[in-house]
């Protein structure tokens, strides 16, 4: 590339995503921990609720609360390498659009969540779900993807907010959990009819709609304010 020509944002985002995914593949810091955490939590719920299997509201709630807590683990670490290894400085010195970092990090977090769910949701079905064949798979996938997008956007924002504070481990869950309550409400209520004992029912359309609206609002908002979280 000739000197002075601006690098297209798409290329920057792609490079950052490649960097983070390669880092994860080599160090395996986030995804295995999230997965182990999810499965331990399913076991905990089994004993805590003293239930051999779950269905309906209860099953949806257990799955979504577990996934949300697991996502906090990834959010905690999302920007740690940037801060400790000087990645922020390097990024800020580069003549690139700053929101590229937000887009890349949100995409990476989204990928982590999808990777965890690919294993955690089947594990949940085997361990705890009453109709263990995962009925209503397409609807479930839609809800999972919409909720993942919301968690990724808000998680990236919270992670960037918290990484510069002195109490990162404390700030992330304290901020992220209330912010994600709408995600849990919509995702759990949307998933519950799929796992009824009497057989799957249709998902009411308002739950995917609320998730979509949440993704849109927080996506635009995070895109607008992310610049201010990076230091000059």
């Amino acid at each position, binding site marked *: 590339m000739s000197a002075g020509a601006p690098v297209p944002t798409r290329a920057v985002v792609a490079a950052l995503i490649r960097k983070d995914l390669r880092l994860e593949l080599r160090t395996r810091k986030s995804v295995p921990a999230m997965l182990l955490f999810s499965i331990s939590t399913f076991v905990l719920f089994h004993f805590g609720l003293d239930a051999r299997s779950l269905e309906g509201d209860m099953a949806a709630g257990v799955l979504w609360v577990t996934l949300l807590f697991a996502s906090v683990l990834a959010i905690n670490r999302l920007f740690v390498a940037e801060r400790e290894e000087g990645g922020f400085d390097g990024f800020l010195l580069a003549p690139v659009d700053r929101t590229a970092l937000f887009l890349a990090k949100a995409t990476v977090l989204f990928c982590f969540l999808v990777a965890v769910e690919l294993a955690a949701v089947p594990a949940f079905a085997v361990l705890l779900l009453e109709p263990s064949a995962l009925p209503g798979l397409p609807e479930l996938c839609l809800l999972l993807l919409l909720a993942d997008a919301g968690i990724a956007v808000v998680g990236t*924002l919270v992670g960037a*907010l918290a990484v*510069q*504070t*002195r*109490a990162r481990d*404390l*700030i992330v869950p*304290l*901020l992220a959990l*209330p*912010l994600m*309550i*709408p995600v849990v*409400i*919509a995702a759990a*209520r949307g998933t519950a009819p799929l796992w009824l004992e009497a057989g799957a029912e249709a998902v009411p359309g*308002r739950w995917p709609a*609320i998730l979509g*609206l*949440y993704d849109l*609002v*927080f996506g635009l*908002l*995070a895109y607008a*304010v992310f610049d*201010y*979280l990076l*230091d000059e």
Partner: protein
Amino acid sequence: MNRHTFSRGLVPLSIASVVLLVGGFAMVFLYAPSDADQGFVQKIFYLHVPLAIVALVGFVAGGVYGIRFLRSGDRLHDLRSYVAIHISLILAVGALVTGSIWAKASWGQWWVWEEPTLVSFLIVFLLYACYQPLRFSIEDPDRQARYAAVFAVVGGAFVPLNFMAVRAAESLIHPRVLSTTGGTMPGSMRITFVVALAGMAVMFVTLCKYELTSKHASFQLRALKRRLAGEDDGWVPVRRSAAPQL
């Protein structure tokens, strides 16, 4: 530091809030009729609802000042945002307590999960309760102001979205006193409520102005002390604090 007259209008505002609040509560007990259904306990409505509305508006106002701070970099906006959220948090505690008392009196339980407005209010409160810890855990004052503003903006947008999601999730047993159809409040109740709401709003503004004035006065005092001691007027934070320092 340029001179800002935060104290301007503080006396008339204080008088107005005392008059409106005392007058409002006098109307609550002497003028407004007792609710046919709930009787005397319904009168807590004139305290609970204004507290909640003013607290929510205050949170959103904190977000608006957050935007203005991010756009202008003027630290006074950061101070305003901080004060608005601070006072709103205190009112929010009041709204939660009075809501709980009302729930106990009229539904027989201290906490009712089927009540979307109360539940969303609790969620908003939990979020904003992290505002001060967040500020406190950031040492660099510039970064503290910027991050707090980002938090205020996100929180301000979260308030309506959260209310929508919670409301969609629950049945509606909360009285919709402010619905677009006008509800079924008789005129005397409506007037009393408007006076109580206005009193609460004016009190909120007054309290905000008091806190701004007090903070500003202590900043000025410190600057004067430093000048007296012959130090240069380079800005140095005295100690780590959650409050913005000018």
